[in-house]
């Protein structure tokens, strides 16, 4: 082995160790939670042997199940609404003059750049002042609000790439504006809309702070449920549930990402 070759080998090994350590740091808590979900002991600090019992009792736990449905419902509806409103807004913003566009995008970015706690209390004050009834509805409105910027962040670059003359050509050939949009423009921006939707869904699912301020008494998402359990000790069923969610997503991503992976392998060969 040449001297530079050796040096490179040392360098790549060092790089691999560094990446390994960072990923250990990022994924150690997740491994911990997965292990805890199989812990027969109710106490977090003691290992009582391997057990599936929390996975069984999870499905009998009404409160957790209700919180799960609330969380999924909010994430699903909020990200869908955000995707529709956000995509329409992107198309409109893209047609605006430079100055107008800058103002609208500046306002759009506020919920993303502002602190969640400020967004949360500002919405709470709005709902109180205008007599909204706190509950699923107020959580939904808040989630749609903070999800829209993520959708626009993903869709905006795609919209800019779309050639306006293609859309006009479709109209010249007799397509209605709506038909021209769905046949010509929409396929081009679809990847952006999808990644925006996914991003919004993830953000909604993982949100605690804004939900904390905008939920009513008696309505809980998984996050707020966990927060109230912190003092009493987390129910082990919660670990089981989050393990199921995490592994499901991991599996889905693995399945979705398989085809391109094979392509890369072929290219390398």
């Amino acid at each position, binding site marked *: 082995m040449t001297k530079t070759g050796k040096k490179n080998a040392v360098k790549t090994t060092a790089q691999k160790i560094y990446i390994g350590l960072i990923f250990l740091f990022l994924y150690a808590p997740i491994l911990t939670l997965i292990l805890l979900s199989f812990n027969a002991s109710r106490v977090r600090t003691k290992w009582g042997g391997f057990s599936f019992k929390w996975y069984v009792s999870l499905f009998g736990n009404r409160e957790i199940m209700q919180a799960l449905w609330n969380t999924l419902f909010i994430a699903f509806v909020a990200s869908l609404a955000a995707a529709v409103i956000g995509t329409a807004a992107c198309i409109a913003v893209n047609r605006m003059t430079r100055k107008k566009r800058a103002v609208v995008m500046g306002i759009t970015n*506020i919920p993303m750049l502002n602190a969640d706690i400020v967004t949360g209390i500002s919405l709470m004050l709005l709902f109180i002042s205008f007599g909204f009834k706190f509950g699923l509805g107020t959580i939904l409105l808040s989630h749609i609000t903070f999800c829209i910027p993520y959708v626009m962040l993903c869709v905006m670059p795609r919209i800019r790439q779309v050639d306006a003359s293609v859309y006009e050509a479709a109209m010249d050939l007799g397509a209605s504006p709506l038909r021209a949009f769905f046949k010509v423009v929409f396929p081009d921006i679809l990847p952006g809309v999808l990644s925006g939707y996914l991003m919004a869904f993830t953000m909604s699912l993982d949100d605690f702070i804004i939900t904390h301020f905008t939920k009513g008494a008696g309505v809980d998402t998984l996050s707020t449920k966990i927060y109230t359990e912190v003092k009493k000790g987390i129910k082990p069923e919660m670990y089981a549930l989050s393990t199921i969610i995490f592994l499901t997503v991991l599996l889905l991503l693995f399945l979705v990402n398989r085809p391109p992976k094979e392509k890369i392998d072929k290219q390398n060969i």
Partner: protein
Amino acid sequence: MKNKKRTGQLLSAPYLVWAAIFILVPLGMVFYYGLTDKTGAFTIANVAAIMGAEHAKALWLSIGLSVVSTLICFLLAYPLAMILANMNVNQHSFIVLVFILPMWMNFLLRTLAWQTLLEKNGVLNQILGFFHLPPLNLINTPAAIILGMVYNFLPFMVLPIYNALVKIDPSVVNAARDLGANGIQTFLKITFPLTIPGIISGITMVFVPALTTFVISKLLGGSKILLIGNVIEEEFTQAGNWHLGSGLSIVLMIFIIFNMVISAIFDKNGEGSML
């Protein structure tokens, strides 16, 4: 032409109404409550309350911890982003995914898991004990809060820097090398300056949530360490003094706006985005 204009208005109207009601009006409410007292009269007492000993202490502690965490995030993220950018992964989305994936496990649970790892008899100390090293007393200290911040916000530093690095045209770097610059010179004169928008965006994305958190300090700092976020949260959920809570939020917003202005100056074209 007229028709076109109308479609534009039709498309933008729902969003503009939405943004006005749910972004601008609520922010106005924070300012209204923050600058009035219970009788509705104008006052700056709620904002000035930040000077009070307890609040000032919480604010300084928040600033200190968030600056340290942001710095640590930067020092960890830059080399990591460089290694990832050099790996020639064909799927950039895969890199993004690896950092976003943990978010599918609840944020509170992930942070709570650090209790198990850091406790007196926790996993970390058992590993240290195995190697006959002295145990670390981390839980319920400011150090644990910093760790929690770095853990939660590191992806927000890595992704913008990674994106800035990937966008650099390799021929620019090659040209510098051809013209006789060595590795360090190329890095300092070419690579680093081109990633500044990414760095600034990363700093904003880490500093703001770290400065304003109340969850991480509550979960990992015990109940004794109060950050400015905890003070505000308690004003709204327990003490019920919305005017004071809003006044202190205005102070926070000053920091956030300052941060946004800086990022706007360095990142005029929106290059330092996360995706």
